[in-house]
């Protein structure tokens, strides 16, 4: 009996030791999450009081991590505004300035690199994006015989990503912008599989942004730094456009290929383009997603 008991207790100790060893990577957990973040309510159920506490928490976290006190706001959609983007394919030269302006404005991770805009290089005469070159890298752009098509979130009227999200972590706002509550997303990546435009990005690890590059002008549903394990994507620069400024990608475009505005205002530039231009297209129109992003051609 003594021997059996001894064997039993040694087996139990060995088992516990092995279990502890298996759990050992958890020692490096760091600032994975906080109790406040874990308990945080769903965006649409927060009172203004809840929101101000959340904003304080986020500002403190950013300050602790980057040494900069950011200005985080919860910007709501404006009444009588629905945003639309128009992109002139005839003018776009494929310089990718928009890609990098976007990264700088929206505090995307630099390591690993996350970018919201993907510029496709396509041969003249084809709209078959399976022929697209994503990694073109010539001495100078544009190259003869090609045109360039930047693709980012198309802000669909019928967004498949919103439909598939199991926890309502992404939704469409009144002004047409599909947003993500980064503190509610569970990281299942179903939206990433559902998006026909490959517009969504996942934080496969903790995003890295150099301190001196951090943009401190932040919005809760916009460019505040994300955590590991959640989705993000283009949100038409909510932190700028909801206070009457243009998106960063538009401001940087050297050839004026990008136009942005309120489609509900008949005098806006985008209303004029969609009314007067003879050819404009929605990407993958046959999907029935009905994007708020239009491509048009004009000298």
């Amino acid at each position, binding site marked *: 009996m003594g021997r059996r008991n001894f064997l039993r207790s040694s087996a139990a100790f060995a088992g516990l030791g092995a279990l502890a060893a298996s*759990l050992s990577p958890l020692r490096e957990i760091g600032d994975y999450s906080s109790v406040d973040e874990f308990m945080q309510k769903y965006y649409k159920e927060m009172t203004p009081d809840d929101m101000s506490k959340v904003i304080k928490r986020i500002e403190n976290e950013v300050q602790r991590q980057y040494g900069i006190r950011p200005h985080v706001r919860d910007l709501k959609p404006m009444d009588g505004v629905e945003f639309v983007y128009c992109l002139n394919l005839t003018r776009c030269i494929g310089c990718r300035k928009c890609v990098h302006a976007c990264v700088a404005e929206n505090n995307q991770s630099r390591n690993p690199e996350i970018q919201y805009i993907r510029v496709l290089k396509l041969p003249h005469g084809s709209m078959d994006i399976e022929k697209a070159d994503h990694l073109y890298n010539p001495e100078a752009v544009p190259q003869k015989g090609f045109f360039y098509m930047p693709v980012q979130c198309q802000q669909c009227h019928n967004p498949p990503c919103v439909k598939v999200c199991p926890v309502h972590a992404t939704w469409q706002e009144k002004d047409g912008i599909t947003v993500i509550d980064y503190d509610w997303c569970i990281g299942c990546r179903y939206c990433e599989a559902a998006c026909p435009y490959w517009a969504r990005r996942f934080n496969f690890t903790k995003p890295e942004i150099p301190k001196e590059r951090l943009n401190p002008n932040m919005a809760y549903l916009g460019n505040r730094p994300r955590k590991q394990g959640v989705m993000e994507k283009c949100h038409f620069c909510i932190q700028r456009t909801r206070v009457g400024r243009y998106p960063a990608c538009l401001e940087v475009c050297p050839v004026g290929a990008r136009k942005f505005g309120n489609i509900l205002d008949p005098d806006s530039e985008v209303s004029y383009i969609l009314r007067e231009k003879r050819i404009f297209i929605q990407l993958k129109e046959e999907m029935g997603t009905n994007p708020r992003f239009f491509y048009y051609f004009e000298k």
Partner: protein
Amino acid sequence: MIHATRDYLTFLWRCARIAFVGDWRYYTWMGGLTVFSLLGLHAYCNQFVHGLIVTGMSDEVSWGVYIANFTFLVGVAAAAVMMVIPVYIYDNEELHDLVIFGELLAVAAIIMCLAFVTVDLGRPDRFWHLIPGIGQLNFPRSMLSWDVIVLNGYLLLNIHICGYLLYCRYQGRKPSKWFYIPFVFIAIVWAVSIHTVTAFLYVGLGGRPFWNSSIVGPRFLASAFSAGPAIIILALQVIRRVTRYHITDKALLTLRSIVQVSMIINVFLLINEIFKEFYSGNLHVASSKYLFLGLDGHHALVPWIWTAIVFNLISMFLLILPLSRSLRWLDVACVLCIVGIWIEKGMGLVIPGFIPTPLGALIEYTPSMNETLVCLGIWAFGLLCYTIFLRMSVPILQGTLSKANEHLPEPEAGVEHSPVPAPH
């Protein structure tokens, strides 16, 4: 009431105790599975801390072996009904007691499924957002919310049916029909639903032409109803060998005819799919081309899918031939069928859906070492659960673990009680 609770707790305690008792083969097997489970746990802790970057997944191929194994195992779980149907609808006596083994397999498979979805989450700490009432479950719009409901419902149904029948047998009383027959019929419909809903998870994505096809659902069912019973055939033979539990060849051959018919349907549907994809030759064939032939010099999946097809075909011919009435050949057919369908329903279904991306980029995917260890860990843990379930249920069904012998000394390692005929 207090009496009943005490009886039930005694039952659970004795079941738990017997899980730690067995001969050297049992300890070796369980020890090995525990080691792999812990290796998997270690790998998962590593992933939990550093993020899904430790896997082979990317923004281009955003689901990998986790979801592939999940899809396969939902099929295995659903296939438990293929034993229930003959018993409860056609009154097949041979399979009567064996139903419990099928349903316990379903329970183990669902546990593995839930583990595979959990390890795929970027923020597993936020799982409570899925709980209706306190979270924000997007029901009925999101197919994933349907999956959460049907999988957990199926788990509860099967735990109830097995648990109730085993407890009645333990007490030596006849189960009350009202307490389980309605649930058995619900479980039959429910089993079809878990696999259909899982198929709809893919079918519902309009932006992924490889999945957006109505044949995915029927193919899921056909492949599940061949791989699932094939696993049960092998499991029953193991049970027969390592315990004194009597399982007739006739019961195994009944299952053989189920695998046989399902495999023929599965291969037929595969031919349908291949024809539709390649004959019309439209632009959406890129994913299928990548899978079956390779695309622009990328062909990581080609050897896999052809292995799967060859295995499925050999398995089908073996099953059709009278040869597979001999158990040796039946086992070969079952193994080929399981491996073939695991490849085809797992990697062969999930990965090509992402290649090329909706913007035409060709990025391939290979599971990382860490990811593979997590998968092995979950499989080992699932087998561990199934072994424990069998370790508890076999003596109960045999009558060696019953209320009647509650006061006798517990069996020690390596010493089995002589079988007492089970009360019918």
